[in-house]
C-alpha cells in the first residue's frame, strides 16, 4: 500500500478496473499461466500481496474487500508453510483447493460470457423481418404479458392507493415475557425437547398457535444468548430442539 500525498493525502489502493479480489486473483493466475487445477496458493498469495503493495492510487471502500482477501491469503500462506498444528483450525489444503475451485468457476463463467458474446446476435448479425404484420387473430386475445412492465407497475399502484388509518387491534397472543418465563421454567438439562412441546396446551390452531411458537422461538434465542439453554437443529426446516444448561456449567 502506498500513501499518496505527504500531507495526509487519501489512502487508496489502485485496482484498475478489477471487479473484486477474485477477479484480480484470476488475472494474476492467468498472467502466470497457472493451471487453475494445480494452483499454487503460495505463489498466488505472494503475487497478490506484491500487487497490493505497488498499487498506487486508491479508494478506501474498494480497498476493504482487497484487504480482507490479503489478510486471508496471508493467513492461508502461513498455515500452508507451518507444520500441521492440528488445533482444529480448517485444513489449509482444503481451503487452498476451495480457492482454486472458485477461481476455476469464475474462469468458466468468463469463458461462457465470451462464448455468448461471440454468437451472431439478433439485431446485430441476424435480423428479423423489417415490417412484420403479425399473424391475424379472429378475436383479439389477451394483451401480451410483459413481466418487467408488471414489476415496474405494481409498486406504483400500491403507493397510489389512498392512505388509510392504521388501527392495531390488541390481540391476546402469547407475549415474549410469558414465553421467556415458560421456557425458563420448563426446560430441563436432561433431555432435548422440541420447541413445540413447550407451547401451552389448548392453543387454537392457526394464528394463536403460530404467534406462541414465534414468541417461544425468540424467547429461546434470548435464553441461549444468556447461556441458559442450548438449541439445536438437525437440518434446515428440521424441528428445533432445546434443553437447559445446568447453572454453574454454562459457558
Amino acid at each position, binding site marked *: 500500500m502506498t500513501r499518496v500525498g505527504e500531507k495526509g493525502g487519501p489512502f487508496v489502493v489502485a485496482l484498475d478496473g478489477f*471487479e*473484486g*479480489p*477474485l*477477479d484480480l486473483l484470476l488475472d494474476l493466475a492467468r498472467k502466470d499461466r497457472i493451471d487453475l*487445477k494445480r494452483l499454487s496458493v503460495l505463489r498466488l498469495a505472494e503475487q497478490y500481496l506484491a500487487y497490493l503493495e505497488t498499487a498506487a492510487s486508491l479508494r478506501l471502500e474498494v480497498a476493504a474487500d482487497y484487504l480482507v482477501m490479503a489478510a486471508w491469503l496471508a493467513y492461508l500462506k502461513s498455515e500452508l508453510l507451518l507444520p500441521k498444528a492440528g488445533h482444529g483450525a480448517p485444513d489449509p489444503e482444503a481451503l487452498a483447493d*476451495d480457492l482454486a*475451485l*472458485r477461481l*476455476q*468457476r*469464475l*474462469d*468458466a*463463467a*468468463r*469463458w*461462457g*460470457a*465470451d*462464448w*455468448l*458474446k461471440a*454468437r*451472431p*446476435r*439478433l*439485431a*446485430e*448479425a*441476424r*435480423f*428479423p*423481418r423489417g415490417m*412484420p*404484420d*403479425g*399473424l391475424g387473430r379472429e378475436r383479439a386475445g389477451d394483451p401480451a404479458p410483459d*413481466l*418487467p412492465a408488471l*414489476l415496474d407497475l405494481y409498486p406504483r399502484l400500491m403507493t397510489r392507493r389512498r392512505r388509510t388509518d392504521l388501527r392495531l387491534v390488541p390481540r391476546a397472543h402469547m407475549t415474549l415475557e410469558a414465553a421467556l418465563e415458560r421456557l425458563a421454567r420448563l426446560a430441563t438439562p436432561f433431555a432435548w425437547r422440541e420447541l413445540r412441546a413447550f407451547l401451552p396446551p389448548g392453543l387454537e390452531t392457526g394464528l394463536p398457535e403460530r404467534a406462541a411458537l414465534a414468541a417461544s422461538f425468540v424467547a429461546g434465542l434470548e435464553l441461549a444468548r444468556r447461556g441458559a439453554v442450548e438449541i439445536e437443529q438437525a437440518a*434446515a*426446516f428440521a424441528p428445533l430442539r432445546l434443553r437447559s444448561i445446568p447453572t454453574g456449567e454454562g459457558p
Partner: protein
Amino acid sequence: MSDPPPKAIVEAMLFAAAEPLSEAEIQARLGGLGEALPLLEELRRDYRDRGVRLERQGRRWALRTAPETAPFLVRADPGPRRLSKAAMETLAVIAWRQPATRAEIEAVRGVPVARGTLDVLLGAGWVRPKGRREAPGRPVTWVTTPGFLDAFGLSSLDDLPRLDELGTSGLFRFDGAD
C-alpha cells in the same frame, strides 16, 4: 377454391409473424392440411443457402437473415446496448447453471450482483424468475427465456457448449458448502 400447398401456408405464417412461432401454433393454424414438423424441416432445408434462414429455437421457429449477410445490412439506428462484463457473466452463470439463485451467481463471481444487473437482463427479456428454491430464505431462482435463444441464435440450451469439454467438470455444481 382449392387450398394452397401446406408448405406454402407454413412459409407465409413464418413470413408474417412478428415473433418466433411455436410448432403447436403452426399446427393449430394448419389444421388437418399437413404435419407441421416435417414441413418446417423441409422449409429449413429449402432456405439453407439463402440470405434468409429458417431458425429453430427449441420448439419455436423464425425467419432470420443469415449471419454472413450482416455486414451488408446497415442499420441507421444504433443496435442494442452493449452489455457490461458483469451482465454478460451473470447471464452466463444463469444460462449454464439454471435455475440459479442470486447467491450462486455471487459465489461464482465473487462480488455482489448489483440490482441493475438482473434488471438489465430481465428488461432484455433474456431471463425470468422461476419460483423459489426450498432452502433457507426461499431464494428466487432465475432461468433463461426463449427470447435468450433467439437473441443468441441458439436452437436450444443443448447448444451451449458443455463446460466439461474445457476440463472444468462440475464447476457450476454446488454442494452443501455453498
